[in-house]
Each structure stands twice: as C-alpha cells, then as structure tokens.
C-alpha cells in the first residue's frame, strides 16, 4: 500500500511544486504544463532504458504501442490500459477508465478544468518512452468524465 502511494504522492507534490514556483505569466502561457511534460519525457526515457534491456526487439509500431499499454503502464500505474484503438495511419487512442492520478479528485465534472495539470506528466512519460523506442510522437490527453482518460498518440513520420 505504501509503495503504491509513493508515486501518487510524489506526482501530487510535483504538480503543486511547479505551479507554486511559477513566475509571472507562466501559468497562462502554458509554461507549467510544458515543464511537467518535459519532466515526464525524461522519466519516460529513463524507464524505457531500464525495462527493455532484456526485451526482444519490437517487430512493428503496433507491437510497441501494445508494450506501452501493458508492461509500461503496469509498471507506473499498476494496471493495463483498458482499451487501445488505432486508425492504422499513425493515430492511437489509449483509454484508461480509472486513471490513477485522477482518482484522488472527485468523480464527475466539478474539477474537470484542473484535470490537464494531472495529465501533462503522463503525456510526457508516453512520449519519452516512445522516443527511446525510436518513435517520434505528439501525445495529448482529454477527460470527459472523471476518472476516465484518453491519451491520443500521433506518430510523426521522420
């Protein structure tokens, strides 16, 4: 129980720490979100280095996305992504029906406007993980009803 809580507690502190230390205009112009996303990117890169050193080479893009949805997600969030969909043209939607970083907020729409603060790090995490697997991407997230969350991954052609 304590081990599971540690990441949640650290993530909470990171979000509040970045916003508290924000300088003039940084919140409005999206700088805080960028900081959190960049932090997530570097953590994602580091995690992939550690976790895949014994893994066989992935055979294609979809194989990599499945790894992110299963092993990578389980490592960080203790469960798999609930649903992975793709148009087979470089866009993937990862749906987590009970996203762990949002469960601490209330269910429903009351805190919907603040949800993006708690998603930025994870967007970076996914992008950083994919980066170290050779994929350049743009990752965005949206919440329509707490605590369900969708991460959209757009693969960039190099």
């Amino acid at each position, binding site marked *: 129980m304590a081990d599971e809580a540690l990441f949640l507690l650290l993530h909470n502190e990171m979000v509040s*720490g970045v916003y*508290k230390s924000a300088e003039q205009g940084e919140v409005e112009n999206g700088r805080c979100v960028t900081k959190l996303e960049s932090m997530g990117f570097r953590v994602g890169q580091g995690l992939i280095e550690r976790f895949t050193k014994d893994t066989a080479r992935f055979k294609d893009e979809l194989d990599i996305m499945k790894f992110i949805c299963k092993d990578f997600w389980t*490592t960080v969030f203790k469960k798999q992504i609930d649903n992975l969909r793709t148009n087979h043209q470089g866009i993937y939607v990862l749906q987590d029906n009970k996203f762990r970083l949002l469960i601490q907020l209330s269910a429903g729409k009351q805190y919907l406007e603040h949800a993006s603060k708690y998603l930025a790090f994870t967007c970076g995490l996914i992008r950083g993980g994919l980066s170290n697997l050779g994929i350049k991407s743009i990752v965005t997230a949206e919440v329509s009803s707490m605590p369900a969350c969708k991460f959209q991954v757009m693969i960039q052609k190099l």
Partner: protein
Amino acid sequence: MADAVLFEFLHTEMVAELWAPDPDPGSGGKRRSLSVLEGLGFRVGQALGERLPLETPAFREELDALKFLCRDLWAAMFQKHMDGLRTNHQGTYVLQDNSFPLLVTMGSGPQYLEEAPKFLAFTCGLLCGALHTLGFQSLVTASVASLPACKFQVVIQKS
C-alpha cells in the same frame, strides 16, 4: 526494481526543477534554496507515515519511532534498512546509510560532493514529516563526507 527506478527518476526531475526557487525568501531576501524540496518531502513523509503499518500506534516511544523510520520507512522508500542508528539519549539521533540509493548513481568519492545536498533535502523533509505524523516535532539535517554514504541528524524538539 520497477518502483524504485520510477521513484529515482522522479526524484531527480524534482531536484532539477525545484531546487532553486523559493517563493517565500524571508528576511534579508536570503533564499533557503532547499526548503521547497524539504517541504515536498515533509508532506510525502506525513502521508507515508499514515499508510505504513504501525504496531501499538498509541503511546509510541521516541526511540521506537526512530526505529520505525530506519526499518519500515526506509524499506518502503529504498527497499533496504538504514545501516546504523545512534543516539545520545537526549533527543539527538544520527541515522547512517552507507550506500544511500539517491547518491549511488553519482559515483563514489568526493567528485560530486558539492551537488549532494540537493539530493538529500527531500529525504530530510520525508523523515521530518513521518515523525510529525507520529507526534514528534523534529529538525532533520543531512551531511555527506564521501559518496554514497550519508548521515541524517534528527533532533527531537521538546515542546
């Protein structure tokens, strides 16, 4: 392994991002540059102190609280026990970790000694926060003579 690595990377990012700014500098404008990290660690320590299993939670002795930190808290955070605990029996304790996980990757010896305090501030706050949850007010400082060994000095405040 997985959880330890995740914490390690996350901690590194927090140090890189938050070690410098302090929005509340205090008198004379002097910045306590590590106080933000200590504050973060304090709150995490408070919450972990609530979640870790306690034997006989009421009327806990001071020394028992310190032993709890050395065993249970350290195991939850770093998957190992503290290497040494010494006290003068007057409220001052020295906790020694001969191979502190957040410093291990910096190498051994004096090369990065100057940077080491940044990586200890969070853990000082963690210890202080956990003690606060257990009912003790304390002042925690850390010192490093040679990486990766470090000592945390805990002074229990009499109220």
